[in-house]
């Protein structure tokens, strides 16, 4: 059975919403090549998620609920994907380029000596069936166009939020079950524990991001004696000024490298060339001057709002709306206004 495969990433038995974007891109390729679109779902609850994929445009679902596949581990997942690819020679395998999607598709492309192009932001199927891909490189400073041979299976990982999911319909997928390839005894990696980050919105999935920079240290509050004043002020600002705005908007909190390097906020929040690349609908940059490394990570945001004391800061060149002033005066006013207007 030749097809286009899309790996549906699950977490605790639920599909990641962004996986439906991959089915959307998969549909474009499957339609152009006139082959069925198959969702691959591994692990707990795979059959139910496979059925759900039908409503999101999949013609088929290939599922495996073997206990070794509960909780993503590269070895059993890659072994199964590589076997499916070797046996069935799909035209393409797609996934959203999350940490797991990136390593799974790379491993399987490596196992099967197939072409792989990562972080696609647009795709175009050529006459011979090859998929031409555009992807940002140098952290979004330039674009690269790449193509894989149509003779083999073309592996593609997709940038989150770059492709639209199929309209959710009443379609159903024909679900088939496959066995796992590796037995537990053959898997070296064992998951010991998992500590979920609670209450935070994932930066790369976020529709709105509020980021703070170096100027977070200009908090007018007095730092307690004995503390590093700049660090205390900035941390207090992230907790008591930025976070309430983010909570009001359902937004994720980001930061510039300057803020992370100064110890104001953990690295997981860093946006930019050595942090995360994001493309939300709305990006609010507070007290961020807009160094080229930061711009690289957020310049494809749809609407950028810059709040900065320095009207000459480079961030205003990217921004749609610019507010010159003190973030410690503007952000609380903005939070209050939004609460009123959004009825929260």
């Amino acid at each position: 059975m030749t097809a286009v495969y899309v790996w549906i990433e699950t977490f605790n038995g639920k599909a990641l919403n962004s996986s439906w974007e991959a089915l959307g891109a998969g549909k474009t390729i499957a339609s152009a090549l006139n082959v069925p679109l198959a969702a691959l779902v591994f692990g707990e609850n795979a059959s139910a998620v496979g059925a759900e994929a039908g409503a999101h445009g999949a013609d088929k679902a290939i599922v495996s609920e073997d206990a070794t596949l509960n909780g993503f581990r590269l070895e059993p997942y890659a072994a199964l994907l590589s076997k499916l690819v070797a046996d069935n020679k799909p035209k393409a395998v797609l996934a959203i380029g999350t940490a797991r999607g990136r390593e799974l598709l790379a491993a399987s492309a490596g196992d099967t000596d197939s072409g792989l192009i990562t972080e696609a932001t647009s795709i175009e199927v050529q006459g011979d069936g090859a998929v031409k891909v555009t992807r940002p490189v140098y952290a979004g400073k330039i674009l690269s166009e790449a193509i894989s041979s149509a003779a083999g299976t073309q592996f593609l990982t997709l940038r989150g939020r770059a492709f639209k999911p199929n309209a959710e319909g009443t379609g159903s997928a024909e679900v088939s079950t496959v066995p796992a390839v590796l037995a537990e005894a053959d898997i070296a990696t064992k998951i010991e524990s998992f500590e979920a980050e609670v209450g935070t919105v994932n930066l790369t999935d976020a529709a709105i991001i509020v980021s703070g920079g170096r100027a977070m240290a200009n908090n007018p509050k007095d730092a307690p004696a004995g503390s590093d004043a700049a660090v205390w002020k900035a941390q207090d600002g992230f907790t008591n000024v930025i976070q309430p705005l983010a909570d009001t908007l359902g937004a994720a909190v980001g930061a510039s490298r300057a803020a992370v390097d100064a110890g104001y906020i953990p690295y997981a929040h860093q946006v930019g060339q050595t942090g995360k690349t994001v493309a939300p609908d709305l990006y609010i940059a507070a007290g961020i001057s807009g160094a080229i490394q930061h711009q690289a990570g957020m310049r494809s945001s749809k609407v950028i709002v810059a709040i900065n004391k320095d009207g000459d800061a480079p961030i205003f060149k990217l921004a749609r709306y610019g507010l010159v002033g003190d973030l410690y005066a503007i952000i609380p006013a903005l939070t209050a206004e939004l609460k009123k207007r959004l009825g929260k």
Partner: protein
Amino acid sequence: MHVVVFTRSTPDTAAKVEVGANGAIGWGDAATVVNPWDEYALEEAIVQAKNAGGKATVIAIGPEFNNESLKHSLAMGVDEAARVWDGALEGTDSLAYATAAAAAVKKLGDVDLVICGKESVDVGTDQHIYQTARKLGWTMLSYVSKIIAVDYNAKTIKVERLLEQGKQVVTSKLPAVISVMKDINEPRYPSFIGIRKASKAVIPEWSLADLGATLPTSQSKVTQFMNLPAKNVQVELITGTPEEQATKLVDRLLEEKVL
């Protein structure tokens, strides 16, 4: 105990990168540096080798300008360096890189652990890391934020990994390939003595024949580089008291339908 770390030279992240009229990527007179992610890998390799009384070797796959990052690695305190290059690698994909990288590790023979930075900051790829692990047939542990325990005799490793939804602790077997995150350590600066020693180092160059490697046919290729379409944003400055600024901004954002 022997740890291998991979690195490469990339343009400074502050550089303005553009595609020239000839279609080639240029970054003016900006310096090339060690791929920033690799600094954490180099630091970790030095620490791991020291803790276990072993040896760290750094390898770059690429043309001669990569010697710069190899010398920086030596100056930091990595014991040995080698560069793999061959005309046949020019213009190839990650399958070729991974094949050459795996062959280089096998040439060294006694390697327990391979450490890589999370990704290459220039081309934005990490696939070569995972494919190197698969070509070696070793365990792959990505996004490692802490090595909790490692036992080179029992061949076991326990690490913390930073994933999208939280922190995972896993145990696995050696030999393994790991990729490390910024959180794992604080990379050291090269010492003066280190820099002087490294400047005199002669770095061996290994060809594919030296490694006994045969490349798989590349299945994907870059067809062109393009500058970004000009972004014509005209900033609208919103003035007034903070409260007035807030009201006007919310008006605009509601019109833009982004709330």
